[in-house]
């Protein structure tokens, strides 16, 4: 891992965030600075070390196949920006580029 410069347009596109020109300049400089600090990790000998995703062993949790309490459609949709007939309304998806 060498010290990389972040391709801000590429990554912002992956993250689905529209950035202003000023944000691009500011974030690029700040994130390059942070990535420079990450370079410390380069020097560490990690040969044979197992990656650690969780502090405690995570095991699959099985639940009985029984109906439990769930939110009503009204409760589930109470925060919807735009709704109609128990559905969320969005701009047209098909046919857009």
């Amino acid at each position, binding site marked *: 891992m060498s010290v990389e410069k972040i391709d801000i347009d590429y*990554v912002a596109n992956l993250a689905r965030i529209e950035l202003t020109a000023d944000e691009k300049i500011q974030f690029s400089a700040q994130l390059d*600075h942070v990535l420079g600090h990450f370079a410390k990790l380069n020097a560490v000998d990690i040969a044979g070390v197992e*990656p650690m995703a969780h502090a405690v062993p995570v095991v699959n949790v099985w639940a009985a196949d029984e109906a439990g309490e769930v939110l009503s459609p009204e409760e589930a949709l109470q925060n919807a920006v735009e709704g109609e007939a128990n559905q969320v309304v969005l701009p047209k998806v098909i046919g857009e580029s």
Partner: protein
Amino acid sequence: MTDSIFYKTALEVGACLERGEVSAVELTQAVIDRTAAVDASVGAFNSINAEDALAQAQDSDKRRSSGQCLGPLDGIPVSLKDVIAVKNSPLTCSSKMLQHYVSPYDAHVTEKLKAAGAVLWGRLNMDEFAMGSSTENSCTAKTANPWNLECVPGGSSGGSAAAVAGGETVLALGSDTGGSIRQPASFCGIVGMKPTYGMVSRYGLAAFASSLDQIGPMTRSVGDAALLLQTIAGHDQRDSTSLQRPVPDYLKALREPEKKAWRIGIPQEYFAEGLDDEVKVAVKRAIEFYREQGCEITSVSLPNTELAVPVYYVIATAEASSNLARYDGVLYSHRSQAATNINEVYFKSRAEGFGPEVKRRVILGTYVLSSGYYDAYYLRAQKVRALIRNDFVAAFKQVDVLLTPTAPTPAFKSGEKTADPLAMYLSDIYTISVNLAGLPGISIPCGMSDSGLPIGLQLIGRPFGESDLLTLAQQFECAHDYAEQHPLLNL
């Protein structure tokens, strides 16, 4: 009822309630009045609902008078960080993204508090989505440190710490991903505890970094932290990382402390460059206190300490970029009015809904997970995380607990670090390893700076070593008067 009832601990007001010296309504009214008097300056709360709190208090008084008291928390005001769900209450995460969101369900900890009869009071300010160390990343309000209104309260649970320190509530819950309970507790002169990962269910906690997040108590005394932890800990099948273990009797551990020659380790790396002199002196005084109490003080090494900040900011931002993908403007979060197609719904809603620090972290997390960089950053960080954990495993073969400063400095001035994210990240240097290793940690007040700002010390324990931490923390608290010191806030 004394004038300063709002500064009593939960155990003290609980005894007053039991003896009939005060009612839950009077107690709740006292914190409501206190909040009305000081919160315009402190800014701890995002929202309050006095009518609802008083109705809960009335119910509590009725239960008590009919002999159906639900326990030691019945009738006591508890305030939650605005990242923990309470049914039919706002859940904003201090973000424009969730400005109008009302939670349709209770978090596990909320259910536990309701079952214990607690009076849920207000929603506490925080850094947006718990990302920050000063509560300056909130889109809603500016929270000040009650000890010096020009200083930050710490973060991300800054509202929780300021409310407890300022007498605006009796107890509070925060969440801690890299120090977000302990660092603000240190800055505001209160007790803050992050439990062992898995002891408290994360169900109903808006996720930041799922492998690191834990909910924990923020209180004015060690006894109160034990009481609150006792109430919220325990298994919950709705959180797959919630552990199936019995919850120890923490209050009993404080009433009947284990008599032994405690072995306390002092990690040398935590006293190196960057540690403020006043903090160093205060923490070294605390070490001498424990030595005089008969504890065995041993120097230990955690050699990978300096790697904790980069490891943490790779892992936490990677997890955040994934967790925050749900805020896309489609179902319930902010939706841009300027969007004309589905892609614009995503891009513009996230541009308008997220603040600068959240955008930076989501972009950084997306980058370290992206094709070509995953192995170099994320996988490597996960391996170094294992080395950091192994350092603790080795240290705990020699000692029972570790004692460190909680933060390198007392509270800093508002605006001092906002332009330099890396400087802000480095203020978490003593707390984040504890999250990476999943250990319990507690911050308690151990001194005051010359300028009148609190200083905190941190005790770190083995997994499930909460009783050890509480026992040693109480030993220090009982021999000092920091728990009785409160900010003047003469407003």
